[in-house]
Each structure stands twice: as structure tokens, then as C-alpha cells.
């Protein structure tokens, strides 16, 4: 991934007490250069995962991270506790702008 590549990431959080799927996203094009670089680095560090996962206990979250790097797409699935390599990205995306619910 080069410095200039456009990176878009959507965090889809499911489960929890609410049991609702909440989507939040970030796009390097909307971010200041420093934050865009940080997003690229966090995305590059994401570990590969093998398919959807269930919640580890009642009302815990599961996460799907959808990544688009200049058109190349990836999908990563995590349950709590989120692995260390993905934690900072999940944390960052948990404060990202909300996206409409997929109905």
C-alpha cells in the first residue's frame, strides 16, 4: 500500500445488549494527512481472519471490518476480546461517523 492510496473502512458491530448491528466508517479522503496515514497503517496491520465468528459470551460484541484499499477489498471478523493487532483500529472506528443502518 502506498502513501497516496485511498483507504475506506467500515466497522460493523453486532450483538451486545442491544443486539443491533451498528455501522461506522472512515475514508482517508475525509481525513487530515496525519490521521489518514494512521488509518492506512492500522489497516495494513490487520490480521487475516477466517470467516464470521459468534459472540464469546452473552451480550458481547462481534465485529466485521470491511476494508477497501484502492478497490482491493478485504473482510476481517473479530469477537471480543479483539486481538491486539486490531484493537486500535476497532477503537478508532468505534468513534467514527455513524452510517445508515442496512435494512
Amino acid at each position, binding site marked *: 500500500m502506498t502513501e497516496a492510496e485511498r483507504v475506506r473502512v467500515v466497522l460493523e458491530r*453486532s450483538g451486545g445488549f*442491544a*443486539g443491533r448491528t*451498528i455501522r461506522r466508517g472512515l475514508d482517508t479522503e475525509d481525513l487530515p494527512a496525519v490521521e489518514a496515514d494512521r488509518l492506512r497503517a492500522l489497516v495494513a496491520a490487520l490480521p487475516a481472519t477466517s470467516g*464470521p465468528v459468534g459472540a464469546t*459470551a452473552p*451480550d458481547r460484541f462481534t465485529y466485521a471490518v470491511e476494508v477497501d484499499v484502492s478497490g482491493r477489498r478485504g473482510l476481517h471478523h473479530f469477537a471480543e476480546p479483539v486481538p491486539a493487532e486490531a484493537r486500535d483500529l476497532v*477503537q478508532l472506528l468505534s468513534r467514527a461517523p455513524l*452510517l445508515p443502518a*442496512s435494512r
Partner: protein
Amino acid sequence: MHLEPRSIATTRQTPCALPPNILERIIRNGTEEQRDWALGTLSLDTTNRMVRLQTAQIAAALPRRRPRPVPASPSARRTIADAQSTETLPGKTVRTEGQASVSDVAVNEAYDGLGATFDFYSAVFHRDSIDDEGLALLATVHYGDHYDNAFWNGEQMVFGDGDGELFNRFTISLDVIGHELTHGVTEDEAGLAYLNQAGALNESVSDVFGSLVKQYKLGQKAGDADWLIGEGLLAPGVQGVALRSMKAPGTAFDDPVLGKDDQPANMSGYVRTTSDNGGVHTNSGIPNKAFYNAAIAFGGHAWEKAGKIWYETLRSPQLRTNASFVAFANLTVTQARTLFDADAVRAVQDAWRAVGVKI
């Protein structure tokens, strides 16, 4: 230890040759050797039908826990800790049992909510804390950064502050606290799997007793309660009154970001999905509505009859960890008969049939 009484060893060739009630009596009253033999005999026939039957018989014969002296009036032992926006548990202790309220509202809500839940289980079901063995209650507040959740981690309660956009702090609703602590009770009693119908039952049981904790605290009768789960939890601007409605599943919210409440109130709307562990927070609407139906049919305080029936169902050795709605429903009918009368049986049957659960 496996010493077989020689004289009866031949019955091993014909599984289930002894009437199950005899085996049950041996398991219950026999010597250790006899018990080992009886349990061994019961497990010879491995057809599903026999395994089902035997599991129930063994469970029925072996008490879940030995009778023990009950303290005159069990009282809660609460500790509230503050994670200070980290995800480190339990965090710094900020209030313990008997201490006066503090300036932090989340701490006081957690303290009071734990107390109300403890008092409910103690007064209504004579249950001594989550494990019925007097477990000290620990809750951590201010967990994580804008963390949108509350959960029971198997040992303690954890509350996030919410993101402020969608959710307020998770200590705000008493039924949320009752819901989460009830996950601890369910884990202790029934161990319902957190998947598909068993998972939706697990969720529903938490909603049922979470709502009853609130109704008990408010002294409400079934007809006067709001039957909402998570009232007050939705942040200002979110279009909805709560997260779930037991009275009218599918009507709690309709919001551009949160989506529309899609809980079914009938089996005809059962949602087949792989997300949320098989839609456990969605399909719980069906057993939730069944409980509401039963509570309204009984009238009065919902914990006195419907609550008692559901609680004893949860404790029933016949309730399997992978129970279906139908299996759970049938056990509630059994409990209605055991605890009450023919009218109660009819009320419970009607409650389930009205939501399309065929019993």
C-alpha cells in the same frame, strides 16, 4: 470406582430392562457402588430417545446442589469499581456494601441496581445471589472509551458509558442490570447455549427477569408495567422508547441509524440468520411475548405466578442446554401444573399458542 454387583450385571445386555424409576431410586438412594452401576446401565443405550430420557432421569435423581442451611436473611455484598475509561478489570474500588452514595451517578446506579436485583431474587425466589450460594456482587463502571454495552463476564458486571450518540450510560435502566445479572443465573442453572432458539431463550429469560426486577422495585402489577427493556438507554435524538418491548415486540424503535426494531411476536416471523448468534436478540421477542401473555392472563404481580413458573422452568433438570422454544414451553406447562392448577396450565398453553409455538 466401578464395582458391579455380580447378580445384576446381566441386565447390561438388555439396556433399560429395569424400569427407569427403579434405576432412579438406586441413583438417589443406593450405595456409591450401586449408583455407579445404575448410572452405567442408564448410559448403555445410546439412541437419542434413550439419551434424552436418561439425561433427564439422572438429572432428576441427582439434586443440582446439596441442601444447605439458608441464612436467616441473606444480604447483598456489593463492590463497585471504576475502570476509569480503560478495559482493565475490575478497576479502582469506589463504593462497598453499606457505604453512602457518592457523587458519581453511574456508581450509585450500579450499586442500587445490583441491590434491587439481589433483593428481587432473594424475596421472590429465596435465591441467595446469582449462584444461590451468596456470591459477592462486583460491578465495574466507566469501562472502556464510550463503550456501548453492559455484560456479565461470568464473574462480575461490566458497564460502559455509552457513546452518547446512540446510547446513554448502561447503568441508567434497572432492567438492563437485571437482564445482565440474570445471564449469570441462567449460566448457573440451565447453561442454555447462546445460539439459535436456545440462545433466544437465554436472551428472553434475561429480559423476563430484568423486567420483573423493575416491576418488583416499582410494585407494579402486570397490567400497569411498561414491559420495555432498556427504557432511558437510547440517547436524545434516537427515535424510539427502548431497545425491546415484551408487550409489543417490533415496536420499540424505528431510527435511521439503529434501524427498525425487527423482533417478531410470533413464530411466523421467526428470523433465520447467522448474525447475532442466530438472531438471539431478535427471536427472543417470541418467548418474551409468551411470558407477557401469561402474566396478563394471571393478572396481579407478574413475578407471583408467571415469574415463578418461568424461574422453576429455568431450574428444571429437564431443561436441556440446546432447548427449543417448544421444549421450553412444554416445561413451563409442566411447572404450571406442579406449582399451580389446571387454570394455570391453560393460561400458559394459551400464552405459547398465541405466539405460534405449537404445544
